[in-house]
């Protein structure tokens, strides 16, 4: 799909949080979103809430995809959402993917996460969700 006139492609930061090195899913998602015409920045592993929010800010991304298979998603995501708010980035669409228990997924949505994607989610579903829900920023005139 070609970006509409006057709008830049959706920009996505795909981030690995904390010490978890399982990056297969993050890389597949990054590649899929890029192939769908989005601009994707992959942070690599061992990121902290601070470094992730800084990347979102510096890259002026409207979507942040967090990959977590380490069970620390609640603590870290809470920090990230707080720091995004403090940085005035409330409109960023935050997505979480990985091994997320059902009860935690509900809590994460309540905290403001746009959607949670567990193992086996088709990438097309992720792409469609991002295209439908990403806040669109117009290009600078």
């Amino acid at each position: 799909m070609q970006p509409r006139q006057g709008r830049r492609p959706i920009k996505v930061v795909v981030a690995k949080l904390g010490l978890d090195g399982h990056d297969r899913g993050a890389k597949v998602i990054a590649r899929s979103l890029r192939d769908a015409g989005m601009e994707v920045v992959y942070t690599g592993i061992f990121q902290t809430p601070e470094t992730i929010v800084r990347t979102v800010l510096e890259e002026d991304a409207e979507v942040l995809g967090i990959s977590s298979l380490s069970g620390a998603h609640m603590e870290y995501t809470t920090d990230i959402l707080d720091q995004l708010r403090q940085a005035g980035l409330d409109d960023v669409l935050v997505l979480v993917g990985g091994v997320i228990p059902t009860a935690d997924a509900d809590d994460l949505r309540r905290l403001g996460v746009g959607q949670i994607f567990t193992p086996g989610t088709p990438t097309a579903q992720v792409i469609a969700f991002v295209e439908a829900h990403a806040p669109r920023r117009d290009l600078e005139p």
Partner: protein
Amino acid sequence: MANEDGTCKDAAPEALADAEAAWRADQLAADYARIPPRRTEFTTLSGLEIKDVYTPSDVASIDPLADIGLPGVYPFTRGVRASMYRGRPWTIRQVAGFGQAEDTNARYRYLLGHGETGLSTDFDLPTLLGHDSDHQVFSREVGKIGVAIDTVEDAHALFDGIPLDEISTSLTINASAAVLLAMYRVVGDERGIGGDQLTGTIQNDILKEYTAQNEYIFPPDPSVRLVVDSMAYAAEVMPRFNPVSVSGYHIREAGATAPEEVGLTLAAGITYLERARQRGIEPDSVAPRLSFFFDVHNDFLEEIAKLRAARRLWARLTRERLGCRLPASSMLRVHAQTAGVTLTAQQPLNNVARVTVQALAAVLGGAQSLHTNSLDEAFQIPSEEAIKVAVRTQQILLHETGVGDVVDPLGGSYYIERLTSDIEDEARALIERIDDHGGLVEAIKSGYAGQLIANSSWEQQRAIESGERTVVGVNAHVDETSGDPGIAAFKLDPGVLERQLARLHQTRASRSAPRVREALGEVRRLADVEEANLMPAIEEAVRARCTVGEICNELRDAWGEYRPPTTF
């Protein structure tokens, strides 16, 4: 048709070829004319071509003695033991680890109470990556996906009441494995159990961390040195303990094919033995204690052939390439685990069927020990109920199906033997390509090995998404009414971090500061001395109640941290 002495008569190869050609032209063509093949091309999960049927012509180049042979005999295609499970069944070894040491200890007792026969430990990420539980940022991960270990006091609590001289233990840890290996030895020693009585395995396979799992701390070269140090140390002070479990599991889970899993894993085994030899350690003195760890994925027959191929290729590589003479050096003893990546969060009860078939492949492939995944592992640490089903699955295979009553029952199958040879050939070719890149360490640094896996992973994802590969419950037979599957949630005690910090602070307060300083100083000093063995210094640091983080920080100071470029 039989010969006069009752043996089968070999059909003349030409007659067989003629019969097969006629069968293709007549019967097979007629069948396909009525019902066309379901696919234009049949391949294994790894992309190897599958013919309609296999006949003696497909195995004509395979020598029944030199290539297939007998179980317990070089090249061990049919198994590393002559009697296999007719004597000792495979070890039921479920990995467990979460929370504080006491929490995991309770899970061990639960598993042993339900008939588990070996222990296996998962550590939390701070421990795996050499950080203490009071780390400013990473303390959030304490006890989450494994047990938190800071000092040998935690290791004592972990194995409290477990007879370490009777039961073998597997420690799933890599970057900081040297510290945990020393801890295990010190726990035994402080409990009066000699190093020669300790049995088990520590994963300690750092090379696959750079290609697959990403749990590394230091750059590849000093990391491999630490592996060689621990091999030499174990050979001396805990000779029945396996100091390395060369692992294909993570490589496969990260997306590699079966031949790539075999090739990259055996390339790592070769690298450890060659680096040992460069340090003056003869391969025959350490190779018998190398063990291996493979995935068992969904393609049932391919996985059986893979395990057979890995055994044969390892036997040949150790003898031809490394000059090993001891039969034990050439035996690929393998722990197998069902493929976590095949578990689906959708319709999780279906995972029991997947795990059963994968476990059967491990058994028919001749594994020495087996972990069966729990049905809820796509979304949580297994609940007690789920892990019990996983243990029971192995017990049903062992006691009810009869598959362990005959050795290598699929040996001699035209298809299995052809596939075994094809996987061996592909894996050997990959090892040669890695050699062309200057060996595995160089292939890691250049990104060649990692890119290989990423590309295979991408292909598999495409095949699933295009519908080329069916995943039940995911891209076919999807339940739109995704109600509660009725699986008990696993709940981690939220007080874990607090309890762990209390013990850490207490241990720090009660130890001898000068002894700690001296021990850490010696670790730091020897880190710069490449030909020295660091293990005795690490052992002394462990005895002095130094923490995993403190010891690893000395090594970080000497060697730096590894940060590869991020590509996708």
